């Protein structure tokens, strides 16, 4: 019982996760059907021929749009419970499989890009409180103010221009390897190359990752940095910090304590961007010729592949919610005051 009480904070969150995902799936189901426009008609029209009523009915059925909305809903719930979100009308493969086979490579790219941004932001944050140089501090603050106002693909275009077209330091941004195919074991390209011992390909991939990861780092660092600097400015003036200084705590530990207290909002923003980039990385992926989950969405748009679009929406948001769940856990771990019930005990 005591163990249960102690670990309540993360146990409760685990129980909430599937409920959230289920509620969202229901909202997504109705959302995509309430939109004005008729996807069945669109998909038939995209083939450029006329169609009969029977053809229309057949197409609606294959897209999961046949019958009344409650009939569709019953089918949807029945399928979703066993992990079946319909079949792509283009490839004929199950949507779940299509999405899950592309997800790892996107996750890898986003993790590298945002991981680099996080490290860079922490570095600048450290410089920000460590340095007494006014110019440096205001430069860091100005960089942080660029948050959310730069599209990542513009940064990527400039970096390709500079490093490929003008300086010719880096190879053409055309995919993950210049020739041959990537081995597939887990779906994470770099990991697979390591597992199969394709060191030459691994080297190529790492070099080709420099530009996309660098652009993502430059674009998303300000978002994390504004949160970090805000937190650092606040925590530096806290009585806790003054007390630590007065009590003669070592400098290193004061810094660690300040960073730990400032990090929670950074972690939240990190999670939000990470979730958003699962689909949002599509611009970077298409620019650098990487396949990914976004490419699937764009292909589905072109062919009005209703089941694939619906599945893409539901699975990517389910993934986002999983990321948010991790963010909550990390934050509760970083700052025990955030655990449910704890705040009340303090009062």
């Amino acid at each position, binding site marked *: 019982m005591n163990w249960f009480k102690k670990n309540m904070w993360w146990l409760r969150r685990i129980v909430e996760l599937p409920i959230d995902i289920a509620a969202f799936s229901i*909202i997504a189901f109705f959302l995509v059907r309430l*939109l*004005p426009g008729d996807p069945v008609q669109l998909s038939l029209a995209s083939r450029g021929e006329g169609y009969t009523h029977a053809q229309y009915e057949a197409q609606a059925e294959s897209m999961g749009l046949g019958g009344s909305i409650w009939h569709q809903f019953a089918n949807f719930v029945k399928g979703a419970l066993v992990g079946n979100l319909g079949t792509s009308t283009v490839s004929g493969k199950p949507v779940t499989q299509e999405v899950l086979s592309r997800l790892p490579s996107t996750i890898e790219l986003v993790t590298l890009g945002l991981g680099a941004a996080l490290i860079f932001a922490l570095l600048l944050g450290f410089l920000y409180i460590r340095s007494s140089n006014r110019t440096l501090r205001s430069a860091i603050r100005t960089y942080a103010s660029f948050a959310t106002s730069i599209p990542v*693909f513009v940064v990527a275009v400039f970096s390709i221009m500079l490093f490929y077209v003008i300086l010719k330091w880096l190879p053409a941004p055309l995919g993950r390897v210049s020739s041959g195919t990537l081995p597939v074991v887990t779906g994470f390209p770099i990991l697979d190359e390591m597992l199969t011992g394709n060191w030459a390909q691994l080297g190529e991939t790492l070099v080709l990752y420099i530009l996309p990861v660098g652009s993502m780092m430059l674009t998303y660092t300000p978002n994390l940095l504004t949160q970090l600097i805000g937190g650092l400015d606040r925590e530096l003036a806290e009585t806790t910090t003054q007390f630590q200084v007065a009590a003669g705590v070592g400098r290193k530990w004061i810094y660690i304590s300040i960073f730990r207290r400032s990090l929670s909002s950074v972690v939240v923003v990190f999670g939000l961007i990470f979730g958003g980039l699962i689909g949002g990385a599509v611009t970077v992926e298409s620019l650098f010729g990487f396949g990914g989950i976004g490419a699937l*969405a764009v292909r589905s748009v072109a062919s009005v592949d209703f089941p694939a679009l619906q599945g893409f929406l539901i699975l990517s*948001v389910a993934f986002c919610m999983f990321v948010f769940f991790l963010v909550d856990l990390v934050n509760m771990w970083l700052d025990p005051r955030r655990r449910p019930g704890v705040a*009340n005990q303090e009062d």
Partner: protein
Amino acid sequence: MEISMTQGSVALSSATPIPAKPTHAQLKHNQLKHTAQPPAAQPGATIRGSGTARKMLTIIGAFLPVIIIVAICLFAPALSHFSPTTTVGAARLSPNAKFWFGTDSVGMDVYSRTLYGTRIAIQFAIVVAVLSTVLGVLIGTFIGLTESSKGVISNVGRVLNKISEYIIAIPGIILAIVVVGLMGSSNFALITSLTLVLVQAPIKLTRVEILQVKRENYLEAAQMAGESSFESAFVHVIPNSIGPALRNLPLIFGNCVINLAALGFIGIGVNAPTPEWGYMISKGISSMMLGRWWEAVFPSLFLFASVLGISYSSKAIPKAIPLIRQLAGRRGNQ
């Protein structure tokens, strides 16, 4: 919650004490909101020299990006010499005296297309920003007023609030892609999808504000004076709680420009040959690999500069307004 407090915003933090577990919807909305708020003015940073000339300079500087963007939109036909949607010269010319930014792979003038691109972006941004703010304020007011009342209508309010919270959890670009995909590519579909993505912030901001305004005494007074609740919502509640949503408007504006370009970039934006930056950039990439850099770089520069300009102005104008009042006040006193 944490985030909004760092910027010293009042709306949320005073309404509720720090909850143990803020929902992501709230946090995301705070993130949106936080960026919308002008950063706390550093003492003495903007008003260091209190000379009139200096103040004038600050004011002009704050409005300058917006003025330039609007001027480009209005005078695009006068500034450019060629039609933006037809072939006007040989294809793939590098920038020269006749075609300042060169021509693209079908011989259209990149300079005219880039200028007209400002128009397209700003037209969409104005429509979406106004639509999102108006709808957001109305829906937010409805939710705020009904969710804690009694009867069937309170359930409607609560369900709407929950739905909005879930939609906030969907990454904007994913939602936009799906909506455009299902509605077919048209301006109407683009506006619907961008509005659906961007309306959530004003809904949240207004709702939170309403929850505070609702407790004010003048509402009770209005009720006693015999005003219907519908009337008092429009006469008293909305005018008093519209502030945060209005301050958020420039942010929607900038976000709309970015999202429209992103959709154009992945090929599901405004239909070709409309001069739209994102589409131009994505078409120009393959030329750039072959050394014809001008097709992609100029639209990128314009997109970059305009988004940055909007973001700068939206932060600088609120700071400049007190200065304008000061200057106007001084003139009035003389």
